[in-house]
């Protein structure tokens, strides 16, 4: 077997760590950008959102290739020596999920602002209190957005394969392991890994949903 059972916990941990970090990193720019965008009255706003919406399903393998060309030793960011490191996958996945995250956030934020912000202000709240109120109301939905973005990140293959290189014990994650298992004809292992990924996502999604229900109570 190319991938032994002893390696599995490491691979799963690495996947969660990499994709989880990528999701947080992406939120760091997606959330402020989306808030700014939703408050703006710029005429090109809708076209910009249109572009972001259409980028949601962009082929991950192409994102991977473009990032490879950027991070490669002979590429423009080659001196950072990021190619074939977990960090490269983190940055790649963070960029990959940005359109999805911004598209989802945009709807959430627009609704919150138009409903809760106006409501708070009209009830005589200070701007500061109104902001808090909006944040509070948005939080449960924000969690769902994070969850979906994380799901996209952990389930993608192209970026992890091209900028990570599927290096044993270093950049090998669940999806690249599945690809390798298929290449080696070890279908049982591939299916098993798929089940692990699915189980993980179901557990996580259920937890988030329960948490949301509890928050909204």
């Amino acid at each position, binding site marked *: 077997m190319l991938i032994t059972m002893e390696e599995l916990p490491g691979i799963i941990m690495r996947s969660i760590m990499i994709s989880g970090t990528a999701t*947080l990193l992406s*939120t760091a720019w997606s959330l402020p950008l989306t808030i*700014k965008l939703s408050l703006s009255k710029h005429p090109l706003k809708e076209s910009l959102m249109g572009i972001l919406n259409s980028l949601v399903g962009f082929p991950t393998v192409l994102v991977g290739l473009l990032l490879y060309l950027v991070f490669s030793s002979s590429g423009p960011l080659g001196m950072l020596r990021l190619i*074939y490191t977990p960090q490269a996958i983190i940055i790649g996945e963070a960029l990959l999920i940005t359109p999805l995250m911004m598209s989802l956030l945009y709807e959430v934020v627009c609704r919150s602002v138009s409903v809760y912000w106006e409501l708070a202000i009209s009830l005589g709240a200070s701007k500061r209190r109104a902001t808090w109120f909006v944040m509070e109301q948005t939080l449960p939905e924000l969690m769902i957005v994070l969850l979906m973005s994380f799901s996209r990140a952990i389930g993608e293959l192209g970026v992890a394969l091209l900028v990570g*290189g*599927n290096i044993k014990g270093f950049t090998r994650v669940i999806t690249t392991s599945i690809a390798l298992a*298929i290449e080696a004809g070890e279908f049982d292992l591939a299916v098993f890994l798929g089940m692990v990924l699915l189980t993980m996502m179901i557990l996580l999604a259920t937890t988030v949903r329960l948490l949301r229900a509890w928050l909204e109570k």
Partner: protein
Amino acid sequence: MKRLSIALATAMIIVSLVLSYLSLSLTPKAKVVIRVSTTTSLYVTGLLDHLAEELKKRYPEVEVVFISVGSGAALELAAKGDVDVVMVHAPSLEKKYIERGVIVNGAIFAYNYFVLVGPSEDPARVKGLEDIVEAFKRIYQAGELGHSCFVSRGDMSGTHVRELMIWNMTGLNPKGRLWYVESGTGMSKTLMLADNLKAYTLSDIGTFLKLKKEGVLKNLVMLVSRGSLLINVYSIHLVNPSRYEVNKEYARRWMEFILSDDGQELIASYGKDKYGVALFNPAKGRSEELKKMWNLLSEGG
């Protein structure tokens, strides 16, 4: 709202930086890392991991890591300067990169055979033929009559280059014929496709035996497996240290280990217990002969 979102963004960036630092600590600490880009057949058979473990016994500070892609891509990674060593099986492609000064000090370290595989019914009647060119001609005729299909890798891999070379020698051009299917993917998926289509295809023997053993292939059997045109020569090259920033010293040690008596012995015995036959033959003792073959093949693509 502005200030809050800036604070939030900063907090998240800090958290993700900490996390990515932690994910660094998930990785094994080795003082020296040698990056090897390799053709898939050497990797999926498990040979390279096996050799790397043996090297680690000798040099515990060294970690050899593999990026397993097709031969064409493996050489391109070298041209970008992202690896220290290349291990591939496409003489005609290798020659181009040697001429461009990307790779140096090439040496043949193993060989085996390409095999023509096809459905056990063998509609083109090629089983047992000594001459692969004749076999391809028969497949062409059977294809034209609608009796059989042929699946080509179509991805400029070492196997694909060899297949094109054989077609070239038949004087026939299968490209564009209805029975000539281009998979454009790796060896395993190509074999799976051929298996489902009950078609013929050219494979390296290692991947075929591995998939056969895993029970993935139901219809395909080995039909033609000998002849000098089917010799599959695996070479190891160092990425040119005068052009790229590479780990010269340790790359050389890895190469020397592969070519040493011990390394060659490990290659010779690898897979015997699992597959009944050795998947790769060591180059030792036959290097002159193989070098000649390599030269011939490097002209052929």
